[in-house]
């Protein structure tokens, strides 16, 4: 049964990708991208990668199509027909590369085998020791926020930098720090949707907090919670207009929060340095090592969550401000 679901989902993924090639027009492509995200996340569930599925569900099916659509709203949805002579060479290149890679896979260990090299070195140690050393059931969170916290700091910094880059690229003259004041111009277009969403958005934000603080025990953590929280805010922004959402969370506050999240993460590491221990060594936080780990992981995940949520909200603000400027 597991195999059947696996094969069915993967075949549908390929079918979606093929239709993405065949389909003309960008909005159609984006709807297919959204389906693609849903499918790949279901696939991750069948592969036991619950945390990954969580993230892909929120990103691949939610935020990513929305950002793509906003870009298409800016640049237009028409896609030009590629010229005939431009097809032959890419096709040849892709086929040759694909065949070579498929020949390469034959040397890979069979799918699912327990003695594959990828499962040999650190993975068994994480699985056997993390229960005692870290004291939380979700091994993914242990690895993410404790064993490999330094890597994760790098990832968070990349996300932070990407947020800054989007602000720099899309910066509008005179936008900095000023909230657009055309409130009231936007009348509610669809009362039913607005009322129902008003009921549902608090639950989304609450669920994001649950994901944030339950990440040690079940699937979840800062990355997922950040994306879900941001999605809730984005929904509010889409329904009630940029001015309203800017009154709820002003852009300067979001930008400051993005930096604060990274700062919280890094300072947790610096605390250990001050005590003469290695960077991000949590044992400085409490005398009992397991409690210290727990405190450290909570602090770090909070930093991650705040940064991810703020960066995605910032990106949304940048695109939405650009869009309303273009519509004027």
């Amino acid at each position, binding site marked *: 049964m597991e195999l059947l679901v696996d*094969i069915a989902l993967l075949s549908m*993924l*390929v079918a979606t990708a*093929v239709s*993405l*090639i065949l389909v003309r027009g*960008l909005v159609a492509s*984006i709807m297919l991208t959204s389906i693609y995200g849903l499918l790949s996340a279901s696939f991750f569930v069948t592969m*036991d*990668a*619950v*945390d*990954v599925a969580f993230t892909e569900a929120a*990103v691949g099916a939610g935020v*990513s199509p929305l*950002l*793509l659509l906003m*870009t298409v709203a*800016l*640049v237009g949805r028409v*896609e*030009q027909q*590629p010229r005939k002579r*431009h097809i032959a060479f*890419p*096709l040849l290149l*892709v086929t040759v*590369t*694909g065949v070579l*890679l498929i020949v390469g896979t*034959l040397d*890979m260990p*069979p*799918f*699912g*085998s*327990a003695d594959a090299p990828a*499962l040999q070195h650190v993975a068994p140690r*994480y*699985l056997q020791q993390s229960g005692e050393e870290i004291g939380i059931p979700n*091994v*993914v969170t*242990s*690895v*993410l926020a404790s064993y*490999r916290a330094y890597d994760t700091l790098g*990832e968070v910094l*990349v996300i932070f930098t*990407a947020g800054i880059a*989007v602000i720099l*690229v899309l910066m509008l003259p005179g936008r900095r720090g000023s909230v657009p004041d055309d409130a009231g111009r936007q009348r509610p277009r669809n009362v039913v949707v607005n009322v129902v969403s008003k009921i549902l958005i608090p639950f989304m934000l609450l669920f994001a907090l649950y994901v944030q603080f339950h990440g040690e025990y*079940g*699937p979840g*953590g800062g*990355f997922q919670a*950040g994306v879900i929280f941001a999605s809730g805010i984005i929904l509010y922004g889409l329904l009630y207009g940029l001015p309203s959402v800017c009154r709820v969370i002003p852009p300067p506050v979001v930008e400051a929060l993005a930096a604060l999240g990274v700062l919280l993460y890094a300072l947790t590491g610096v605390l250990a340095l001050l005590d003469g221990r290695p960077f991000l060594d949590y044992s400085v936080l409490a005398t009992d090592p397991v409690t210290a780990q727990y405190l450290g992981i909570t602090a770090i995940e909070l930093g991650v969550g705040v940064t991810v949520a703020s*960066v995605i909200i910032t*990106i949304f603000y940048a*695109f939405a401000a*650009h869009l309303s400027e273009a519509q004027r």
Partner: protein
Amino acid sequence: MDIASYFNYWIVIVLMMLGFYIVIARGNLVKKLIGLNIFQTSVFILYISAGKVSDGAAPILTEGVSVYSNPLPHVLILTAIVVGIATTAVGLALVARIHEAYGTVEESQILEQDNAC
């Protein structure tokens, strides 16, 4: 040789090549980014497939379970997905600016305008 034992990897390669094809054969910059997304997801699928153990459980420690899937690829991919959307956003922002500067997002027209200068 069991087909099921390599099926996932083959699908990964097919997806990767489909994404690659979109990136090199299509002129529209937004479509190129969509192709890049497919390529990216295929890499995710490769990592997650490599971490799967037959009959393994999700790597959340529970009583009475001894075989878990490898948590390390999960950690790598989980962060990569969020980094991926952040970098895609930078790409999309650049596309929006290119549209402002050139009035088009078709690669051939942009090159024409560049050559005309």
